[in-house]
């Protein structure tokens, strides 16, 4: 069979057009989702929305203050648990690269990334909720902290790997103890990389719903006691979205808008930080 050059070039061009076309189609969902959320969300938002509790069915208005406080509290407690553990594990992985333990830890981190969030919810239910005898904010935070760990560990490890050995050797040769070298020289040198990993992990868990379903559960009132059930933005979106009431849908659109803004904002900060204060030597 003879294929002429013209035919081959035609195929070549056609393929490129198809690639560009399919890639463009791929961006549509983002635009469509953002458009819908912004259009429906902005009309639901006003001052009352941020300071009021949700109203019962039939009454218009109402807000999501309980979910906002709940989400902030859940994420704060989750960060307190996961940041030290994640950063220390990351340091271990970058300091001891060829030990058996670092191999298994890396493998575990990879596996942990893939564990479905609902399964983490089940485990924390069995560990914490069942032991404590009821749903609680702390169990929700523990579930979220498990989900934050992989990305904190990975970003710490990958950032610290970039920092040249000479920096460490210089510090050690001046007589600085090893732990101070790590904490005062190596860690500050890579702090932007680690911080962006932490912010990204927060952005990821801010929208997590599945692990909260049977841990933090939900709460129609403001709660700041970590031993009691607590509401959260994603939980309120889920519960109101599947409800049959128009007023509640409106609240859910508003809550989605707030959540999307937070998530996009955190993602954009990380992008700018990564570009501006790139860890490089």
């Amino acid at each position, binding site marked *: 069979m003879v294929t002429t050059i013209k035919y081959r070039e035609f195929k070549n061009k056609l393929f490129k057009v198809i690639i560009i076309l399919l890639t463009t189609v*791929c961006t549509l969902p983002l635009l469509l989702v953002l458009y819908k959320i912004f259009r429906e969300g902005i009309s639901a938002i006003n001052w009352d929305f941020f300071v009021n509790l949700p109203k019962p069915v039939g009454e218009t208005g109402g807000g999501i203050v309980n979910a906002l406080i709940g989400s902030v509290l859940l994420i704060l407690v989750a960060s307190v648990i996961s940041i030290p553990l994640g950063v220390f594990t990351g340091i271990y992985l970058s300091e001891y690269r060829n030990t058996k333990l670092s191999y298994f830890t890396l493998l575990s981190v990879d596996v942990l990334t*893939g564990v479905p969030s609902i399964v983490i919810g089940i485990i924390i239910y069995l560990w914490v909720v069942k032991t404590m005898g009821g749903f609680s904010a702390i169990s929700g935070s523990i579930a979220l902290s498990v989900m934050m760990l992989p990305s904190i560990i990975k970003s710490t490890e990958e950032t610290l790997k970039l920092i040249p050995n000479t920096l460490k050797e210089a510090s050690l040769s001046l007589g600085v103890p090893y732990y101070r070298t790590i904490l005062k020289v190596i860690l500050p040198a890579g702090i932007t990389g680690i911080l962006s990993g932490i912010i990204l992990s927060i952005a990821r868990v801010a929208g997590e719903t599945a692990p909260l379903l049977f841990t933090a559960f939900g709460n129609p009132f403001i709660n700041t006691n970590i031993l009691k059930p607590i509401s959260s933005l994603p939980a309120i979106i*889920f519960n109101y979205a599947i409800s049959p009431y128009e007023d509640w849908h409106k609240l859910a659109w508003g809550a989605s808008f707030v959540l*999307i803004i937070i998530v996009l904002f955190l993602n954009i900060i990380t992008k700018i930080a990564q570009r501006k204060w790139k860890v490089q030597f």
Partner: protein
Amino acid sequence: MPITTDQQIKGINFSEFAFRKILFISAISIVILLFCFFLTLVASSLPSINTIGIKFIYGVTWDPVSDKFGGFPFLAGTLFTSLLALIIAIPFSLSVALFLGEYFRTGLISAIFKNIVELLAAIPSVIYGFWGLFVLVPLIRSLETKIGVAPYGVGILTSSIILSIMIVPYAVSLTVQVITLVPADLKEAAYSLGATRLEVIRNIILPYTRSGIFAGILLALGRALGETMAVTMLIGNSHIVPVSIFSPGNTMASVIANEFTEATGKIYLSALIEMGLFLFLVTTIINIIGRSVIKRFSIS
């Protein structure tokens, strides 16, 4: 000039020792954590494994009231939605990966599309579900009325479309990674022989990256299998074996999400946990295989 006393040296030695121990304990705790996950899931599914046994896999009736726990409808629903989502997602993710990894590697256009795809991954699952419920479901419903099947709106197809949107960014980021690793001299050699770009892609890039692309798709499948919220909101939650792409169904993750807090009875709860164990095992195996292929790829 400060003089370091023996006391201080002792203190430093202790801190040094404690610091190294803390690092070690942190690292080992991750491994232990994962191991305990597995043990907990196995221990809690034992009642169900013992009483239901193998029937859990092929039994088609799920009726907690009469203690019948056949998981086949959910197994079928999970595989059906995930595979359909993969079929939809593969052409798109390959295109985007070639777009970012071959056609437009640098520059403004590349940066814009790269960021869009990354933001696609940032949108929470529950928001995809909510959007799907109010935008996609009416669309599918009108399509179903047009072709004359029962217009549920929710169902396998709706969930698969949303799932495919959610896994594209994931597959893309892994695939771009391997496509950019193709050695330039291989491609240049082909160009110098007069190959067009399409021929280079078909004869050099795709064969060279085959295993990497396979791993990317495998990992995307792992993500699709365990995806919960969006699917729960869109699949229709009916305990039947799905027979067509328009029929409602249920996946393992969504049945756990729906019934876990209401599960009364030891076997009922245990059966739901057994599904969690299954998801855990499958995603673990997929991740270990996928990551090791990609790792081997980036080293070679």
